[in-house]
């Protein structure tokens, strides 16, 4: 049975609702009262969520192999000839079309669902902030862009969403734009993402040039239309032998796309923007920089899995970068004191996990972790926001403590999220992390070890955060202490719902070894068929049940060890953190300063770019302005001087010559005009006499006649 239904044929409504309210907010939002803003903006996301759920259910009604719904709204870039790298030309087209398959189902549900909860939370969190409508306008614009990204049926439209979320990320990080650090953080995020985007767009061009199409798949489109997609083109190329396993073109595509993914999903070396992005309001950190946008890179790699499966070298790069990022960011998180910074590095670390999963070929595990991470990390950020709210804006965990009884709902949900991210059974994080670790154990033991150690570190820094924030004695000053209060229901209800999801969210991927059937993996399988059935997913030599149990026990015990260590450090104080820091001062210093990466980047890249700017400034002043502008000015001045000389001596000279002639000629006439009345009378008389003398004979005749 194929997938049909009302919701499926109106897929485009999902991104449209937030776009409409975003436009409304950004154009006339100032005049809409706060209640109206909340109602419209939360309502539109709720409508998107409803449409999304409806569409997913209608898709689920179909048989697994027919679970693809694709519709092309209109041709966006109309067909034009494009020369392929092989030499022949093909018609190139980009549509404005939407694709709903199991993969985008997961993303749509996560984005709209978690997005809706965060929107509701924001109503409470942002009440006292200025620019309420602006905040919600940007948030809804973000929802539109993110939904366009996950629903796009081709790479170019995906890139539109990709840039859209980048823009909204920039706008929302710099939401408090009067604060210099916030404005700088926004710029940093934008610029670092540009580097990744350059790789992405080169990847798109290379896909177009190699495969002749940028549409992901032709599935779900009528056969008669002659549509082709990347998947189909790859299959044709592989069966005809033009491209094969490990083909350089495919490896190049995969690596370029991964550059884009690393930028958006904050992987080494492009992760530096994410910690700074915490300058934005906390719901933004939860929605954009934890749950949705930063996972776009993971989604994109899974979306292009057909290419990656044929590019083993790129896969290894992804796995290594992911693993290194995971342990690197986790080690920084161990010593951070800002509640949001800890969570930011934790996010980078967890994203590293996801890429590790993708790199070892466990695409479903990556997406599974993406989903569970969206639940518990959004919850952690929202909980942190609730804590910050209660602490009158304080973010330093050294000045917290003892909040367990004062803000009970926040504290309990935070504990659940912490257990989930630490990977404790049966919370959501356990299942997804275990799947990742299991997959990497089969492929690269060394990478498994890295992920395994990271899991321990994760448990340690999260429980360190938990103990310092909620337990022990309060270290806040009296003024703050007096104001501590639980957040309003609009904030706590989303916390509770997300806490529920953090508990049960992993159960849909309940592994076979524990008596489940991993429905999640089966659900996603149709998307991951790949271009060649034999290569399929990169074949993993599946381990036995005993190994699986052993691995589970191992990850549980390292998580337990991390928790125990955090307990000893920060709860019983049996080991003082200061002593440990003093024992390894160099290590501690490096960690506190985040491996000096920002400083190194400043020295190697930022300042070099600034030097280039200075040099260009001098070049501009000396060469462009000096030689070009001033030179032209000098030329014009000299030319006009010449022209002036010509004008003065030749044109004016001719005129003056005429005037001088006139003056000369008129000189004798002037003598007559004395201005003396009597002389005029005299002249009149003389004239009369002359006239009489001349006409005298007439006078004579006249007089004679008279006689």
């Amino acid at each position: 049975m194929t997938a049909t239904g009302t919701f499926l044929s109106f897929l485009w409504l999902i991104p449209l609702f937030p776009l409409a309210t975003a436009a409304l907010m950004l154009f006339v939002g100032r005049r809409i009262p706060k209640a109206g803003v909340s109602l419209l903006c939360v309502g539109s996301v709720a409508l998107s969520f409803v449409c999304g759920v409806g569409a997913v259910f209608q898709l689920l009604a179909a048989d697994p192999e027919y679970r693809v719904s694709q519709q092309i709204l209109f041709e966006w870039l109309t067909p034009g000839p494009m020369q392929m790298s092989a030499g022949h030309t093909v018609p190139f087209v980009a549509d404005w079309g939407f694709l709903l398959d199991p993969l985008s189902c997961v993303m749509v549900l996560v984005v709209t669902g978690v997005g809706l909860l965060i929107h509701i939370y924001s109503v409470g969190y942002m009440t006292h902030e200025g620019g309420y409508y602006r905040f919600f306008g940007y948030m809804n614009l973000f929802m539109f862009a993110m939904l366009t990204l996950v629903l796009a049926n081709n790479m170019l439209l995906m890139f539109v969403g990709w840039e859209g979320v980048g823009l909204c990320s920039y706008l929302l990080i710099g939401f408090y734009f009067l604060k210099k650090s916030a404005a700088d953080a926004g710029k940093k995020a934008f610029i670092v993402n540009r580097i990744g985007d350059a790789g992405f767009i080169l990847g798109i061009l290379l896909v177009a040039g190699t495969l002749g199409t940028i549409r992901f798949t032709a599935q779900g489109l009528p056969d008669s239309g002659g549509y082709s997609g990347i998947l189909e083109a790859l299959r044709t190329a592989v069966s005809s032998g033009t491209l094969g396993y490990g083909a350089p073109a495919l490896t190049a595509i995969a690596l370029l796309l991964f550059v884009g993914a690393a930028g958006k999903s904050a992987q080494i070396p492009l992760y530096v923007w994410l910690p700074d992005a915490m300058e934005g309001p906390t719901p933004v950190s939860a929605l954009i920089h934890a749950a949705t946008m930063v996972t776009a890179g993971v989604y994109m790699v899974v979306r292009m899995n057909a290419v990656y499966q044929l590019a083993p070298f790129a896969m290894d790069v992804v796995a290594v970068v992911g693993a290194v990022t995971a342990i690197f960011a986790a080690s920084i998180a161990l010593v951070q004191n800002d509640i949001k910074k800890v969570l930011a590095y934790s996010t980078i670390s967890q994203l590293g996990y996801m890429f590790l999963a993708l790199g070892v070929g466990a695409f479903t595990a990556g997406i599974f972790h993406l989903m569970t991470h969206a639940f518990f990390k959004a919850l952690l950020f929202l909980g942190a926001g609730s804590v910050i709210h209660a602490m009158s804006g304080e973010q330093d965990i050294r000045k917290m403590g003892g909040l367990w009884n004062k803000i009970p709902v926040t504290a309990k949900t935070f504990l659940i999220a912490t257990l989930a991210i630490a990977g404790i059974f049966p919370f959501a994080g356990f299942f997804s992390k275990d799947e990742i670790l299991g997959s990497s154990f089969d492929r690269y033991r060394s990478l498994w070890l890295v992920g395994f150690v990271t899991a321990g570190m994760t448990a340690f820094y999260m429980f360190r955060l938990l103990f310092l924030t909620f337990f022990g004695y309060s270290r806040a000053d009296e003024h703050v202490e007096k104001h501590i209060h639980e957040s309003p229901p609009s904030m706590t209800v989303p916390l509770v719902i997300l806490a529920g999801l953090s508990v049960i969210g992993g159960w849909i991927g309940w592994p076979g070894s524990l008596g489940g059937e991993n429905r999640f993996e089966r659900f996603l399988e149709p998307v991951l068929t790949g271009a060649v059935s034999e290569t399929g997913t990169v074949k993993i030599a599946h381990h036995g049940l005993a190994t699986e149990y052993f691995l589970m026990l191992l990850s549980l015990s390292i998580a337990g060890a991390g928790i125990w260590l955090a307990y000893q450090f920060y709860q019983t104080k049996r080991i003082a953190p200061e002593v440990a820091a003093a024992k390894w001062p160099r290590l501690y210093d490096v960690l506190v300063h985040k491996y000096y990466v920002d400083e190194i980047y400043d020295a190697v890249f930022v300042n070099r770019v600034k030097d280039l700017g200075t040099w260009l400034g001098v070049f501009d002043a000396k060469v462009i302005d000096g030689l070009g502008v001033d030179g032209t000015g000098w030329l014009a001045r000299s030319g006009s001087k010449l022209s002036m000389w010509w004008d003065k001596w030749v044109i004016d000279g001719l005129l003056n010559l005429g005037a001088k002639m006139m003056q000369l000629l008129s000189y004798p006439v002037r003598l007559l005009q004395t201005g003396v009345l009597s002389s005029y009378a005299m002249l009149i008389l003389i004239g009369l006499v002359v006239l009489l003398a001349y006409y005298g004979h007439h006078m004579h005749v006249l007089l004679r006649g008279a006689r």
Partner: protein
Amino acid sequence: MLPIGHYLFLSFALFVIGVIGVITRRNVIVVLMSVELILNAVNINLVAFSRLYGDVAGQVFALFIIADAAAEAAVGLGIIIAFFRNRETVLADEMDLLKW
């Protein structure tokens, strides 16, 4: 009846006196009076010829000239008074504004 030559001689004499007055006198009022003399010389001429030819048109003309002279005297004296107020002089050789 006196022959026309007498009238013409009188007219000519008056005319010449008038012209000499206009040309030589400095006082503009005297110049104006001399102009009156010239006009009256013309009048005598007209009336004399009118009588000679028995054509009354000449006498009508003379009447017009008398009226014209009165008007001219009024305007002329007005100009002189206005000029005197500005320049405090009625001497013709000081009225050199015609040449700028």
